[in-house]
């Protein structure tokens, strides 16, 4: 290995315009997203706030989550990544065209989401609701972002990639993989598609995506931002660079596995649940390693917090990161999850992360960047401090309210009398108990929103007081022509060691010759001893050309190893379930939905009913007493997408079929409080006048057949007439009881679907599924 060095002076002008745009887009969309969140909170506390069909809670809630995640945090992340990457690698962005496509393309996607979600165009998968044309647009814009980013790295004049850049790399490659895999769907028409995965498979893929959207969209890029902006603001390097290396590799290896903790105690295979739980608990270590690394960077600079609002926001944001990443593993313990899942405790957890970690880090970064991007001072430090206090107060009020609400709900659902019967058998009793907490949440959320508005005003005034500045830096660049070949890194000792240990482990496994403690001990000893030996050998050489140091200078190989690290967990977890074949006997006895039931299911998905109603009865006695037998994998095998849900603002519906007569459902939809006093469900009377487009029903069955649902050609041919016939029967039944509604109305289809849930169809009536038994 030889190295030649040449020295060159160069002037670099950074493209900071894109960071300015992304900052203001983030602030603007953040206010919109949080305003929608406040309206949704009001709707839960006071149902009349559901003023129009397209503004009902079920449609607004996805708009809120998408706006906050992809618009607020997304734009913030892009601003921070572009700003810091250019400076860390000492290269300007290579293409103004790509940068413009990225910025305007992303805003167009957000706008499309803001229009289509209230209109009811949804795939029915949380945080992945957007329909297929928008999904394709997201993939394309993301690729543009990736090209722009990696092109910048290719042009870099600083060879070494700082830890923040590693986190950005992990974000870019992993989000691409997650989005593409989870969004695979079969289009039916322009804004309608069905997920290619069904039931438990869809659940596993969705929460593999959902959890890692949190990990690689809301966490890793913000950690990168933390590793860049916190040292800048504190005026000192990160506390421990060594810890940051361990933090990075441990986090990306572990995070990808943790998705199934969203499906604990469900019909998902037990092994997947266990993996999800174990890796979630392991996640606590790297998360807290990162959190402590951040906070300890402030060591010796804590006095600056009194004067500097930027550091206040960063310190509080990192503290919330620590709190949320302690709570996450706690909630992933099966027994704790049994109490917390489906309750507002999860909402508290999510908002501690989103408002506390993402929101406060964003504010800190904006207050740091905008004065520099406009060559001036922050307009009002006092207002920034006020924002900090009102925002922190808002988060705390919100989180405490939802903790209280969640634990109350969880305990009430499981409370039994001395004779073993449920103490609160009527679901709405639990809603009545937590209603004050819903008002408290609204106050907390509104306080946080007020802080955001103050920040917007402050940043705007700051920008008006200065002029846009594109930083220019003249740097002395040492261009090292490193002669270490790529094979020296790819086939370096640590990689060989991992391959040997992994291979040894695989061999043990296959031959089954050794097992248990001995198996683990041997492997661990080899890994540890080998790594120490490599380290000692490096030291003996005087510390030059350390393997990881070399790796940090090779972007392409770094990206490849990151992809491998992420894919190992993803593939190992998903493949066994995705390739599993259903039991032939179970398949033979199962019936897909009738044409009308399928139409009703589409209405259910469109209205976002899954935002409040789960379809997954857990194997707990108190759940069986309330809802019926625990759900099984076969219950939802033809569900594209699955509708297991993640929150119960209303009761579980997995075995709703036949519980009530159709008239009850009719009345419940027209006016929920007429049959369930105290309910906070929005009225759905508009479904009674909404007409189904039965001409499209055969296309829907055809699409379902193409992804494995056993419809026959005859089922597809007769879909329209069969749906009409079943609808007319239900309408006739309702008319006989005084309810006048058309057979081809959306309400009748929804009733047909609800009456089917958890039941196999009767064989003699016209509601018999039109699919043949196989």
């Amino acid at each position: 290995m030889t190295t030649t060095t040449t020295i060159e002076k160069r002037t670099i002008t950074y493209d900071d315009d894109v960071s300015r745009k992304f900052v203001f887009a983030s602030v603007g969309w953040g206010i919109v997203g949080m305003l929608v969140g406040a309206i949704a909170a009001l709707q839960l506390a006071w149902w009349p706030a559901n003023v129009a069909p397209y503004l009902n809670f079920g449609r607004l809630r996805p708009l809120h989550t998408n706006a906050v995640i992809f618009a607020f945090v997304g734009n913030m992340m892009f601003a921070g990544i572009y700003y810091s990457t250019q400076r860390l690698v000492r290269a300007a962005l290579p293409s103004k065209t790509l940068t413009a496509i990225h910025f305007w393309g992303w805003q167009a996607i957000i706008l499309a989401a803001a229009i289509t979600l209230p209109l009811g165009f949804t795939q029915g998968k949380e945080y992945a609701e957007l329909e297929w044309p928008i999904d394709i647009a997201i993939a394309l814009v993301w690729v543009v972002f990736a090209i722009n980013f990696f092109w910048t790295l290719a042009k870099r004049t600083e060879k070494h990639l700082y830890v923040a850049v590693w986190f950005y790399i992990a974000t870019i490659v992993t989000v691409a993989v997650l989005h593409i895999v989870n969004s695979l769907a079969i289009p039916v028409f322009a804004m309608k598609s069905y997920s290619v995965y069904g039931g438990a498979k869809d659940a596993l893929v969705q929460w593999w995506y959902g959890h890692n959207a949190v990990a690689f969209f809301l966490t890793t890029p913000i950690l990168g931002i933390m590793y860049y902006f916190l040292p800048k603001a504190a005026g000192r390097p990160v506390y421990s660079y060594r810890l940051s290396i361990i933090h990075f590799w441990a986090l990306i290896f572990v995070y990808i596995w943790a998705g199934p903790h969203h499906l604990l105690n469900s019909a998902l295979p037990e092994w997947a649940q266990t993996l999800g739980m174990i890796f979630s608990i392991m996640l606590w270590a790297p998360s807290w390693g990162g959190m402590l690394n951040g906070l300890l960077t402030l060591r010796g600079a804590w006095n600056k917090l009194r004067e500097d609002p930027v550091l206040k926001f960063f310190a509080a944001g990192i503290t919330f990161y620590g709190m949320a990443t302690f709570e996450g593993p706690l909630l992933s313990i099966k027994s704790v999850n049994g109490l917390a899942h489906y309750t507002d405790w999860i909402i508290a957890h999510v908002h501690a992360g989103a408002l506390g970690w993402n929101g406060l880090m964003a504010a800190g970064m904006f207050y740091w960047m905008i004065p520099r991007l406009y060559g001036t001072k922050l307009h009002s430090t006092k207002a920034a401090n006020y924002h900090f206090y009102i925002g922190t107060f808002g988060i705390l009020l919100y989180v405490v309210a939802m903790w209280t609400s969640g634990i109350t709900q969880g305990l009430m659902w499981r409370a039994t009398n001395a004779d073993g019967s449920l103490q609160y058998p009527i679901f709405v009793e639990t809603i009545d108990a937590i209603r004050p907490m819903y008002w408290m949440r609204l106050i907390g959320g509104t306080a946080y929103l007020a802080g955001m508005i103050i920040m917007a005003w402050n940043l705007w005034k700051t920008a008006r007081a200065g002029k846009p500045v594109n930083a220019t830096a003249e740097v002395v660049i040492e261009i090292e022509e490193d002669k270490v070949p790529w094979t020296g890194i790819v086939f370096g000792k640590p990689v060989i060691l991992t391959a040997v240990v992994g291979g040894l482990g695989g061999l043990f496994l296959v031959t089954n010759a050794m097992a248990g403690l001995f198996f683990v001990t041997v492997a661990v000893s080899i890994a540890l001893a080998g790594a120490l030996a490599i380290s000692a050998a490096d030291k003996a050489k005087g510390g030059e050309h350390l393997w990881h140091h070399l790796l940090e200078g090779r972007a392409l190989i770094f990206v490849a190893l990151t992809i491998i690290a992420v894919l190992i967990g993803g593939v190992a977890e998903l493949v066994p379930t995705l390739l599993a074949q259903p039991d032939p006997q179970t398949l033979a006895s199962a019936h897909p939905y009738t044409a009308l039931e399928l139409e009703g299911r589409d209405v259910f998905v469109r209205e976002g009913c899954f935002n409040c109603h789960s379809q997954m009865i857990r194997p707990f006695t108190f759940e069986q007493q309330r809802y019926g037998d625990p759900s099984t994998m076969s219950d939802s095998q033809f569900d594209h997408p699955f509708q297991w849900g993640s929150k119960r603002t209303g009761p579980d519906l997995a075995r709703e079929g036949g519980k009530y007569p159709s008239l009850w459902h009719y009345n419940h939809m027209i006016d929920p409080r007429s049959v369930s006093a105290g309910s906070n469900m929005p009225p759905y009377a508009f479904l009674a006048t909404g007409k189904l487009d039965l001409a499209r029903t055969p296309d829907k069955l055809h699409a379902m057949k193409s992804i494995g649902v056993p419809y026959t050609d005859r089922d597809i041919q007769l879909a329209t007439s069969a749906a009409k016939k079943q609808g007319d029967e239900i309408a006739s039944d309702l008319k006989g009881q005084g309810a006048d509604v058309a057979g081809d109305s959306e309400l009748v289809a929804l009733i047909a679907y609800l009456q089917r849930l958890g039941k196999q169809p009767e064989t003699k009536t016209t509601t018999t599924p039109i699919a043949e038994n196989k």
Partner: protein
Amino acid sequence: MHKELLSHTPLLALPIFAMFVFLAVFLGVCAITLTRKRRAYAEVASLPLIEGQAPRKDESHE
């Protein structure tokens, strides 16, 4: 335990194998990184500060 797991499908060797690889990598990274002196990373840790003021010696953690 792994015998019970593999009785469902041999594909379940995948998660065990992958977990094993993680363990090896994690321990390797820990050992290699933590046996290095802090000052070996001082220069790279200061990268964010280069365009601004360099940290005073007494402010550096490394």
